[in-house]
C-alpha cells in the first residue's frame, strides 16, 4: 500500500462509523503531515551529512567523520547542540517578525513535497494544478528571508534581505517560464501527468528549459554562484546573521531542504521522475535521479565563485529571460507543427526529432547570447611596461 492521503483516508474512514467524515479527514491529514514532516527532516539531516562529506572531499578535507560510523550521527549532534543553545535576539529586534521568519521559510519547502510524485503517486494524491502550486509555494520563501532580515534589526541582515527579495523575485520569472515549456510539452499541469508524458526525459527534449530552470532554481535557493543573500565574505551571513539556537537551526534546515526540493522538482519535470527500466522500483529511480541532481548542485557550489549583485540581476533579465522565452516559443511552434491539433501524446520518434532541433537551437542561442553578454574587456590584454619606471637604468 502506498503512503498517500487517499489510502490513509480510505483506511481511517473504514474503521470509523459513518457520519464522522470530518474526523477521518483530520486524523488522516495530521497523521500524514507528521509522517511526511518527520521523514523530510530526517532526510534533510542525512542530506546535510552528505553535503558536508562530499563538499569536504571536493575541498580535500575529510568532512564530519567523528561521531558515529562515517560521521553519520553528526547531524544529530548538530541538532542537539543548536536546540540546547540559548536563543539570542537583539534588544531592538521585532520579536514577532523574527520569530515567524524561520517558520515562513521552512513551510513552503514542506508544502512542495506534498505533491511530488515519488512513485506513481504523491502524498497528497495528484494535484491537477501541481506546477502552479509549486510556483506559488516556492515564491513564499521571499517572505521568510525578508522577515528574517527586517525583523533582526541588523544592517547586514537588512542588506542581505533586500538583495534576497530583488533576486528571488527576478528569478521567479525565468523559472516559471522554464516550467511552462515542460507544461506545454506534457499538455498537463499535474506533476504525474508530466511524469507520464516523459517517454523521453525532458532534459533531452528541451535542454534550454533545463538549463534555465537549473540556473534559476539555484538562484531561488541562493546557492553558489548566486549565494549573495548570505554571502559570508561580504555580509557575514546575510539575513540570518542575528539568529541563534533553534531559530538558526530552522533556517539551516530550510536552507538544506532547498536543494532537496529543487532536486525533486528537477527530477519530476526534467529527468522523468520515477520512470526508468523496471529492473529497479520507481522510487529508487527517483532517489537516484534526485541524488544526481543534488550532486550536480553541490559540484557547482564547490567550484564557482559568487556573482555581483548587479550581474546577478542583469543575468536574470538579459540572459535567462530571453532564453526562457525562446524555449517556450520553440516548444510551442514544434507542438503546433508536429501535433497538428490532435490531443494524442507525442511519440518518441517525434520527440527525438524535436530534441535534435532543440539541441541545435540551444547551442546557437547560447553562443549568440554569450557573445552578446560576454564583454570584450574580459579578453586578456597584452601588458605594456609603463615608461615611468626602468629598473635596468644605470644612472650616471
Amino acid at each position, binding site marked *: 500500500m502506498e503512503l498517500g492521503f487517499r489510502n490513509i483516508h480510505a483506511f481511517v474512514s473504514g474503521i470509523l462509523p459513518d457520519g464522522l467524515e470530518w474526523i477521518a479527514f483530520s486524523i488522516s491529514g495530521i497523521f500524514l503531515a507528521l509522517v511526511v514532516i518527520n521523514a523530510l527532516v530526517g532526510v534533510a539531516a542525512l542530506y546535510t551529512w552528505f553535503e558536508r562529506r562530499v*563538499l569536504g572531499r*571536493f*575541498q*580535500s*578535507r575529510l568532512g564530519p567523520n567523528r561521531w558515529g560510523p562515517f560521521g553519520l550521527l553528526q547531524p544529530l549532534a548538530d541538532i542537539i547542540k543548536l536546540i540546547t543553545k540559548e536563543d539570542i535576539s537583539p534588544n531592538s529586534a521585532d520579536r514577532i517578525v523574527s520569530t515567524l521568519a524561520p517558520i515562513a521559510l521552512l513551510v513552503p519547502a514542506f508544502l512542495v513535497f506534498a505533491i511530488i510524485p515519488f512513485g506513481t503517486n504523491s502524498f497528497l494524491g495528484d494535484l491537477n494544478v501541481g506546477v502552479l502550486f509549486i510556483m506559488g509555494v516556492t515564491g513564499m520563501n521571499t517572505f521568510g528571508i525578508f522577515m528574517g532580515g527586517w525583523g533582526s534589526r541588523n*544592517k*547586514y541582515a537588512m*542588506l542581505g534581505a533586500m*538583495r534576497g527579495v530583488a533576486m528571488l523575485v527576478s528569478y521567479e520569472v525565468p523559472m516559471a517560464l522554464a516550467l511552462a515549456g515542460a507544461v506545454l510539452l506534457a499538455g498537463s499541469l499535474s506533476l504525474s501527468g508530466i511524469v507520464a508524458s516523459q517517454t523521453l526525459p525532458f532534459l533531452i527534449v528541451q535542454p534550454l528549459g533545463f538549463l534555465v530552470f537549473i540556473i534559476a532554481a539555484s538562484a531561488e535557493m541562493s546557492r*553558489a*554562484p548566486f*549565494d*549573495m543573500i548570505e*554571502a*559570508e*565574505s*561580504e555580509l*557575514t551571513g546575510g539575513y540570518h546573521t542575528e539568529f541563534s539556537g533553534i531559530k538558526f537551526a530552522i533556517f539551516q534546515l530550510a536552507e538544506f531542504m532547498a536543494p532537496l526540493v529543487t532536486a525533486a522538482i528537477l527530477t519530476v519535470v526534467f529527468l522523468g521522475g520515477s520512470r526508468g527500466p523496471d529492473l529497479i522500483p520507481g522510487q529508487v529511480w527517483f532517489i537516484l535521479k534526485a541524488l544526481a541532481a543534488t550532486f550536480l548542485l553541490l559540484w557547482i*557550489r*564547490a*567550484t*564557482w*565563485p*559568487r*556573482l*555581483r*549583485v*548587479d*550581474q546577478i540581476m542583469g543575468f536574470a533579465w538579459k540572459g535567462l529571460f530571453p532564453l526562457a522565452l525562446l524555449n517556450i516559443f520553440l516548444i510551442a511552434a514544434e507542438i503546433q507543427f508536429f501535433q497538428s491539433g490532435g490531443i494524442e501524446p507525442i511519440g518518441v520518434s517525434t520527440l527525438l526529432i524535436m530534441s535534435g532541433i532543440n539541441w541545435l537551437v540551444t547551442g546557437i542561442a547560447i553562443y549568440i547570447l554569450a557573445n552578446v553578454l*560576454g*564583454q570584450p*574587456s*574580459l579578453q*586578456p*590584454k*597584452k*601588458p*605594456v*611596461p*609603463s615608461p*615611468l*619606471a*626602468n*629598473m*635596468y637604468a644605470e644612472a650616471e
Partner: protein
Amino acid sequence: MPIRTEPVTINLGPQHPSTHGVFRLRVTFDGEEVIDLEPVFGYLHRGTEKLAEERTYTQIVTLTDRLDYESAMSNNLGYVTALEKLGGIEVPERAMYLRVISVELQRIASHLVFTGFFLQELGTFVTMLMYCFRERERILDLFEMLCGARITVSYMRPGGLTQDAPSDFWPALNDFLEDMPGYIDELEELITRNEIVLSRTRDVGVLDPEVAIDASISGPILRASGVQWDLRKADPYEIYSEMDFEIPIGATGDCFDRYIVRLQEMRESVKIIKQCVDKIPDGTVKTDGAFFMRPPEGDAYGCVEAPRGELGFYIVSDGGISPYRCKIRSPSFINTTMLRDMIVGGKMSDLIVIFGSLAVNMGEVDR
C-alpha cells in the same frame, strides 16, 4: 510621492570575515553602492618599533617574524639586509643562496595564501582556500626542516643564518619544485579563465600607474598597474643579480591583474629556486661575532622585495647594543593609501574584492 532614502553606515570590521585580521572600514552605503569609506587602523598595534629600541640587534629578528606573519622569512631578510648594510657585514655565499631559497619559498607561500583568500572572498566556498593551503603546507614543512618552525621562523641572523639546511631538505625541496608548476597550472586552469572571476575582477579597482607611483604603492600591486619595478632586478640584493627571471606585469591595474601577476610571480620564484639549487656552493652559513654585533654609529635604510611590496627597515644606531631607532616601512600599510579612491563608487562586493586584492596583512599594517 518621492521615496525618502538615506545612506547607511556600516562598520565593516574589526571582526568581519574579509578584513584579514582586525581592521575596521567605516563604510557608507547608498543602497549597494559605496559612497564613503574610512579605514580605521590600529587594532593590532603592538609597538614593534618601540620594542625594537630596547632589544639587541639579534633579538629584533624575532620581532620581525610577527610583522607580516604570512611571510616571516622576507621580514627576516629585510631586517638583516638593513643591519648588514649598517654594520658592513659580509655574508657567506652559501648563506645568501639559502636565504634566497627560503625567501622565494616564502613568496610562493604568501601568494598562495593571497590566492586562496582572494578567491574565498569572491565566493568560492572554501574550495580554493583549501587547495592553496594544501600546497602551502608543503612549503611550511620545508621551513620546519630548515629551522624547526613553520610560521614564525626566526631563521636569519645578522651575518648569515642560524643553521645550514639538513640533508633531507634538498630531496624534499626538489620534490616540491617538481610538483609546484603543476599546482600552479591547476590553479590557473581553475580560475584564470573562469568567467565569473573575470567579470567580478576585470576593471574593478583600477589603479593607474601614475597614481600608484605617487601613492608609494609597491610590490605586485604596482606591477599590476604596468610599472615594471622590482627591487630584485632594480637593486639586486643577495645573489639575485646572478639569477635569470622575469618580472611579470599587468595590463590595466585592476583586481584581476593583481591576481595574475602574483600567480606568475610564483612561477618565477620556482625558477629562481631551481637555479639556486643548481648553483649553491659549499661553505659556512654564519659570520663570527655577528650574533653579538654592535654596529657603528650611523643610519642605514635597507629594503627587500617582500611578497607584499617594498619592505624597508631604517635603522639608526648610536653604537650601542640595540638600535636607537628602527623604523619599518611596511608595504601593506602604505598600499592602503589609495583604498578610499579605489573603492568609492563601487558596489559592496567590489569593496571586498578590491580590499582582498591588495593582500593587506594587518600584522604589518599596525606593527
